[in-house]
């Protein structure tokens, strides 16, 4: 049968974000795939060279709008290491709490989008409803719904509001009950299982060779989670388990994210109970010394890394970003090969694309 190229994107219901997937099909079977990214490139790394260090925090919020807290946190971590700033312990705990709340919100957004991809619109409405709970919590802390501008170099902008602990625990109690309900909806849907199980298999060796990280790699049964293997902040003082699943398919990636939401709720509870009193912010120096620093965190989508070069002034000489999805998207040809065109939304949805950080 004749082979042909199909363009899926940039305007296509399959693409969450703005990118273009070119697939070469033989009948219905995909024999080659080629992702085209760069529709959102705005020269982020170049722009940072013209901003002072605190001015970059709101920009790094807009790197990945699905999980903006973890990117501004990553930036602050990198600059703290560059400047040698010690963060107060209370600030570290506040950061862990907001990061985990952000992880839950991000995964809920993913569940919602994945539901619409696979014709499970009930899942979309349910997950978006519970996502508002966490956005409300984050809004009570930071004042914004999506782009928070909350972490600061040397701490966080403000302390947790009064009665945050009560609201947070109440939301988590409610959410954990709802999470069981999602599992009933998703795992009880025969269509969902048929479209995800044994579809989009990413073997562990492929995943590691191509540099895939985060829930996508843990869905292949590889035990890698920077919060455990290279702990930052206060993750090593908390008790929690890494979530993996051995199946390597889309269903495994879905299971990993569901378990991670449960685990995040568990971490938030612990951090709330262990949080010490004290200051939440120290004053950082204005200029950075002439040296380099690297920081990496476990983003909801994988391993994010920032590399800063300071040159003695108040602006970075160079700021390099390693985006997890830019690397994961390079694994697309390996995952898609051999499946049908109708499987593309199921497979690409399970990667959890975020194009803001991919194109930078």
């Amino acid at each position, binding site marked *: 049968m004749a082979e042909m190229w199909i363009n899926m994107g*940039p305007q296509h219901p399959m693409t969450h974000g703005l990118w273009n997937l070119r697939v070469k099909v033989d009948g219905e079977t995909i024999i080659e795939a080629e992702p085209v990214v760069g529709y*959102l*490139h*705005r020269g982020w790394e170049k722009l940072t060279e013209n901003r002072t260090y605190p001015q970059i925090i709101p920009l790094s919020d*807009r790197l990945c709008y699905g999980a903006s807290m973890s990117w501004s946190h990553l930036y602050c971590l990198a600059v703290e290491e560059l400047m040698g700033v010690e963060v107060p312990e209370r600030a570290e705990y506040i950061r862990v709490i907001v990061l985990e709340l952000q992880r839950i919100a991000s995964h809920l*957004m993913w569940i919602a989008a994945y539901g619409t991809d696979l014709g499970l619109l009930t899942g979309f409405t349910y997950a*978006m*409803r519970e996502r508002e709970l966490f956005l409300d919590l984050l809004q009570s802390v930071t004042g914004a719904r999506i782009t928070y501008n909350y972490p600061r170099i040397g701490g966080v902008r403000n302390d947790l509001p009064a009665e945050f602990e009560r609201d947070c625990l109440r939301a988590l109690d409610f959410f954990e009950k709802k999470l069981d309900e999602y599992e009933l909806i998703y795992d009880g849907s025969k269509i969902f299982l048929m479209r995800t199980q044994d579809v989009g298999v990413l073997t562990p060796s492929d995943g590691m060779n191509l540099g895939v990280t985060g829930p996508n790699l843990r869905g292949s049964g590889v035990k890698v989670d920077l919060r455990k293997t290279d702990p930052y902040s206060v993750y090593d003082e908390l008790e929690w388990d890494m979530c993996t699943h051995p199946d390597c398919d889309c269903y495994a990636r879905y299971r990993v994210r569901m378990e991670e939401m449960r685990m995040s709720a568990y971490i938030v509870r612990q951090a709330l109970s262990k949080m010490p009193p004290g200051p939440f912010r120290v004053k950082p120096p204005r200029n950075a010394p002439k040296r380099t620093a690297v920081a990496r965190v476990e983003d909801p989508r994988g391993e994010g890394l920032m590399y800063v070069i300071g040159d003695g002034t108040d602006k970075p000489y160079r700021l390099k970003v390693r985006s997890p999805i830019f690397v994961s998207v390079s694994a697309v040809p390996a995952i898609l090969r051999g499946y049908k065109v109708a499987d593309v939304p199921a497979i690409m949805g399970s990667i959890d694309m975020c194009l*803001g950080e991919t194109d930078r």
Partner: protein
Amino acid sequence: MSAKEFMEWSSQVFDEVMRASGVKRGVDKITRPIWSWALRNSLFPLHFGIACCALEMAAASAPRWDAERFGFVFRSSPRQCDVLLVNGWITSKLRPDLRRLYEQMPEPKWVVAMGECAISGGPWYDSYNVVQGVDTFIPVDIHIPGCPPRPEAMLDGFLKLQDKIRHSTKGTFLED
């Protein structure tokens, strides 16, 4: 006179008679409110998420805000849409595609620029790759400021667009 020529001639005569006799004005006066009511209460925006504001677009159609009660149903094909909702920064790579999407939409159509990036470039005001505002290459009807605007603000912008349609609908009987 061929059949085609006869059709053209007869429709022209009909047109002129209707206009001159004032029938068109009378019919328009009756049908205009109906046409405008139908248009403004079934605005179909294009399902086209670009950046941060796309999440608020999704939140606006989710249960808490439920944009569908105002008649905003997101459609995936530009050929089924009335409104192009531009929600994010426009890079020079995206610009020709966005222009093509706009041209693929059938008339009547409106454009809503959501967020600072679509209005004026926003935080990327000095970027080498970001188009400084969508109104540099597409006519924009409604601007919704914010970075990103809350879903309430987005709904408010769409209600403003409904107001605009109410005040500007043309006649429907025999094209103007």
